């Protein structure tokens, strides 16, 4: 009897998992997971959770891993060249990278499009982008809860946890506040060893 229940429990888990994966993978490009190593997946409200690590290729073909920036605050920005609002905030990011880079900010752009890499690179050069930009993969978008609308940005603290998320274009002042919060997150008070502010 007990064995029957255990077997039934296993069957339930397997069936449920297959149903979930079936929907999760039923879209074009999902087979490109091999081009983007992803660890973890966000569900629900991302604030307070660890940002999923991933590895992508920059526009120069170099590997870019989110975990390489641990210890810095990261503004992870999903965008595309065909996205008008994305173009508006890009010059703001350039300014903010210059202003807060010395304090430990790293902006990372992820281009979520099938456009030729050379065209994306030309676009970023024309915009004066001064931070790394990677060619996005759907697997990374999925790991971050399914990035449907662009721009979508995640503000990640020095400890790798998500401080804030923004979907759609927001004002430069608001972006700056989120950056300041990310810079303060994961910083220890030198006297007490506890998180700063606590």
């Amino acid at each position, binding site marked *: 009897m007990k064995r029957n229940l255990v077997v039934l429990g296993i069957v*339930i888990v397997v069936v449920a998992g297959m149903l979930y994966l079936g*929907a*999760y993978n039923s879209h074009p490009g999902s087979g490109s997971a091999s081009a983007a190593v992803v660890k973890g997946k966000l569900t629900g409200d991302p604030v307070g959770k660890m940002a999923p690590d991933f590895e992508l290729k920059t526009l120069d073909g170099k590997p870019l891993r989110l975990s390489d920036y641990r210890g810095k605050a990261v503004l992870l920005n999903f965008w*595309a*060249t065909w996205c*008008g609002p994305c173009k508006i905030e890009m010059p703001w990011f350039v300014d903010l990278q210059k202003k807060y880079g010395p304090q430990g900010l790293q902006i990372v752009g992820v281009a*979520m499009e099938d456009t030729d890499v050379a065209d994306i690179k030309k676009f970023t050069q024309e915009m004066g982008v001064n931070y790394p930009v990677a060619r996005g993969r759907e697997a990374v978008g999925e790991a971050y809860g399914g990035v449907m*609308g*662009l721009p979508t940005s995640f503000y990640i603290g020095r400890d790798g946890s998500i401080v804030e998320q923004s979907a759609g274009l927001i004002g430069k002042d608001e972006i700056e506040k989120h950056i300041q919060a990310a810079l303060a997150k994961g910083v220890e008070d030198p006297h007490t060893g506890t998180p700063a502010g606590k």
Partner: protein
Amino acid sequence: MKTSAIKINVILLVGILVAITSLHADDLLNQKKHQWVTLFPVAPVTVTKNKPVKAMIAFRVEQGYHINSNHPKSELLIPTEIELNPAQGLTVGKIAYPPGEDMSLSFAPDEKLNVYAGEVSVAVPVSAGKSVAPGQYVLKGQLRYQACNDNSCFPPKTIPLEVPVKVVR
């Protein structure tokens, strides 16, 4: 009695778990399937040989959103396009897209976009060559667009479309 009660509870649990998983999976699918444009059924056209007629492709953009016109103001922007595949001796002529309306986002009042919003109609010339036998045909193709609202843009989408064509002598 006890065994029957356990069996019923287990069956109920299975059903609930499968239902919950299906709903969540369905939610993911719905997000990916969402279309910001609704294509109206295309009225059939009647073609006599070598006399082109215009098939009207009409669609509505979801309220609160806009799509780039066929001639957006930047080559980086994805234009709205209709593709119809010629078939069985039927040909598709040059499509004259309607002009879009100029607008700008509140965050960038100086940057103009040329867009379609609300209901849009596009006339597509269709003709039949001399060798086409009278009868019923269907031209197949797709409408491609890319939608935005005031502060977000969404990946390009395609909607399949069909144009019923009747060829008469």
